[in-house]
């Protein structure tokens, strides 16, 4: 059956200053198919799609819809051509309800009538099998609900071409599966779907065809059933790379951090950590799995001394003398003064870890500013460190004096992780260190974590990709609504088991005494 081409990009070029984001890019999407776009960080996937969605305007090249050349100079034009994009970072107004967000920006002559809108929203949800309350406010929603609203937003406008930018990054495996079944239903309904993702197994399971981008250029488009993970990776990187994480057996593990029965509440007084106990051992990677916002951040912050506890204690054993130190209720500086070395890679890279307007060298100094004994700054040592990180981690930057804000997300992440590891910690906590990173950079980070583990560091790794957690971690702790629902062995556990633990309602917690649970 010959399908019609819904959207075609012809030799699109886009530059930002001196950075070429897309160079002579070609892309075709058929009606009623799911096309996956694959590429490293900075390969121009999102930029290309932003041009189709009218956020950016191409410097050169044409965009064709149903075979006719069109000019898309604003998101509004994109809607008129029935193109809808679901962005990686949700574009929703927090204090509005789902319906208010959905009608935002629609210009028709009809009178503004919220009831009619709600009715139409419910019609769409029933057609594709969504579940959502149109009157619920965005700020009260879970991540997956927010994403549903984003999808409804474009469907409500009658979009025929849907672009999803890394839609699964924040979802559990079960939610992902649900999303995929909805996408398949839309495809069967004749809609064209473009999905940008880093996750290879998702590409293989959902898409009909895969377009691979490398350094802003379109490398190839292949039919999904005729390809495999290795071939796609090779196309993406331009070279063969080893996709296996080598996991060594933990050597002379000692208890380094014993967390017992800690609890805490958030600003509104709701419990965020509830009676959490676990042990992190040296020379071992402890993974933490859970739906975003289940208390991972608070847990790491509690250990780093940034989050006050209401109950429980955290005992740290110094590497040299094995002397116990209680970290509870100590400030981050006190923790350092005790000789306790915790390095912390926060989730929100630019918010907590780095100062965007400062250059790489100055950001290195943020960690070591207390070492200096002179009134003036000494920039030589941090400069060496910055240069070393740029070289070792292949950070793409003109030089070490570039403000961190101007680097792409993946490169910012490398700078941050590199700095934390350079502090030679004895406990290294990393929250989503590979979020938004391409395959190559991710594996660089995994190897760094593995090196730390072999050096006897107790690594705590909060991750979102369960496949990676299972390959990398020695033990995986699953957290759900601030409670531990299970600690499983990374070598024997299976994905579905962790997924279930992640979503299990906490009232059933007592039944969790499976054989893997410690």
């Amino acid at each position, binding site marked *: 059956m010959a399908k019609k081409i819904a959207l075609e990009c012809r030799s699109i070029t886009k530059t930002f200053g001196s950075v070429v984001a897309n160079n002579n890019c070609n892309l075709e999407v058929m009606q009623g198919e799911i096309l996956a776009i694959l590429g490293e960080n900075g390969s121009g996937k999102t930029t290309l799609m932003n041009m189709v969605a009218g*956020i950016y305007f191409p410097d050169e090249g044409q965009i064709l819809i149903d075979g006719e050349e069109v000019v898309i100079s604003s998101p509004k034009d994109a809607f008129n051509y029935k193109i809808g994009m679901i962005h990686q970072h949700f574009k929703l107004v927090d204090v*509005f309800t789902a319906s208010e967000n959905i*009608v*935002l*920006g629609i210009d028709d002559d009809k009178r*503004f009538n919220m009831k009619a809108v709600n009715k139409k929203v419910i019609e769409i949800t029933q057609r594709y099998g969504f579940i959502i309350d149109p009157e619920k406010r965005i700020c009260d929603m879970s991540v997956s609900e927010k994403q549903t609203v984003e999808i409804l937003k474009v469907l409500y406008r009658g979009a025929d071409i849907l672009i999803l930018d890394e839609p699964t990054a924040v979802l559990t495996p079960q939610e992902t599966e649900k999303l995929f079944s909805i996408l398949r239903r839309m495809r069967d309904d004749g809609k064209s779907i473009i999905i940008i993702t880093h996750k290879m197994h998702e590409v293989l399971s959902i898409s009909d065809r895969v377009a691979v981008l490398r350094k802003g250029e379109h490398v190839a488009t292949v039919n999904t059933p005729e390809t495999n993970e290795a071939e796609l990776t090779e196309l993406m990187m331009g070279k063969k790379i080893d996709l296996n994480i080598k996991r060594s057996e933990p050597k002379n593990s000692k208890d380094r951090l014993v967390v017992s029965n800690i609890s805490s509440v958030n600003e509104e007084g709701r419990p965020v950590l509830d009676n959490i106990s676990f042990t992190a051992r040296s020379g071992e990677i402890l993974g933490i799995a859970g739906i975003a916002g289940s208390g991972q951040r608070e847990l790491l912050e509690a250990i780093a001394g940034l989050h006050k506890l209401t109950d429980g204690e955290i005992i740290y054993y110094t590497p040299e003398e094995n002397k116990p130190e209680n970290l509870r209720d100590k400030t981050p500086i006190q923790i350092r003064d005790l000789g306790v070395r915790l390095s912390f890679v926060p989730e929100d890279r630019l918010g907590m870890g780095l100062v965007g307007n400062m250059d790489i060298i100055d950001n290195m100094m943020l960690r070591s500013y207390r070492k200096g004994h002179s009134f003036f700054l000494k920039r030589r040592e941090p400069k060496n460190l910055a240069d070393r990180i740029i070289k070792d981690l292949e950070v793409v930057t003109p030089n070490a004096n570039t403000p961190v804000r*101007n680097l792409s997300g993946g490169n910012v992440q490398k700078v941050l992780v590199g700095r934390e590891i350079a502090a030679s910690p004895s406990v290294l906590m990393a929250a989503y260190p590979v979020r938004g990173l391409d395959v190559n950079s991710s594996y660089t980070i995994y190897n760094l974590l593995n090196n730390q583990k072999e050096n006897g560091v107790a690594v705590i790794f909060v991750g979102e990709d369960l496949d990676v957690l299972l390959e990398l971690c020695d033990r995986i702790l699953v957290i759900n609504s601030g409670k531990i629902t299970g600690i499983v062995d990374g070598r024997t556990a299976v994905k579905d088991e962790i997924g279930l633990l992640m979503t299990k309602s906490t009232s059933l917690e007592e039944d969790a005494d499976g054989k893997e649970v410690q």
Partner: protein
Amino acid sequence: MLAFLVSAIRLGMTFLLGSTGETIAEKSGHLNLGIPGVMCVGASCGCFAEYLYFSAVKTNIVPVLAVIIPIVAAFIGAAFMGLMFSFLTVTLRANQNVTGLAITTLGVGISNYMIDETSTIFTKGSKYFTASLPFADDLGWFGELFLSYGIFVYLAIAIALTTSFVLSKTKVGLHLRSVGENPATADAAGINVSRYRYVATCIGCGVAGLGGLSFIMDYLNGNWEYCIDAIGWLAIALVIFTVWKPNLAIIGSIIFGALYIASTYITGFGFAEKELFKMLPYIVTIIVLVFTSIRNKKDSQPPAALGLNYFREER
């Protein structure tokens, strides 16, 4: 007591116009600290227009024109200041706080330059603004409390109610709020962020300019004073006091008016105590700020993107 209330309401409407104007701008994400200057410009443009009109026609003055001409002039003059603010912050992406303070300084200067002394024409013109319904005097306290006012009191309340309705019940209001809450989202939804910000700021400034004119022509009965900017700062405080809701601001403005003039109605205070009394509105505002931020209720928070300029291709 009745006289005190009537006076509080008359002053309150000046605050109300100023704060409604500021609310419209703030809902679009513009923290317009230029409001005091804008109110000065509104007052001086209005008074100057009245002066020109009276000088031109000499004797046969049409009452309607004597009211309409200054109002239109005040609106246009003040809206022009809003245009300047928007040009600096939207087009040139200048910092909003700095721009606002510059607009205030500039506005006060312009107004002092335009009106260097009070004129009897102002007091004459003021009679048309304060003219109340003819039967108001026959209705006793009811008439005095509700019907004894000039056009500005009713105009202010009408504008506040209209603004409140437009913001919460219409598509334009929804779009405007989205621009102030999350401009990137609004932009992606196909809303012209720059246009909404320009228009909202200009209209907001125009409304605030009317507030300046009402202070001179209504509350002061046409006696020019150089303290309009002080009123402007209170109007900004009133926006926070009434948590960005123009309908609440109707009550809030009367409370502010009462607090502001309380010292003159309570006898037995010296100069220093009276000045302390005038601080009350600010203290009340600080208390409200503390209260709303402790409660952290989504309904009573400022627009999320307030004070932030938007540039689409920024990463």
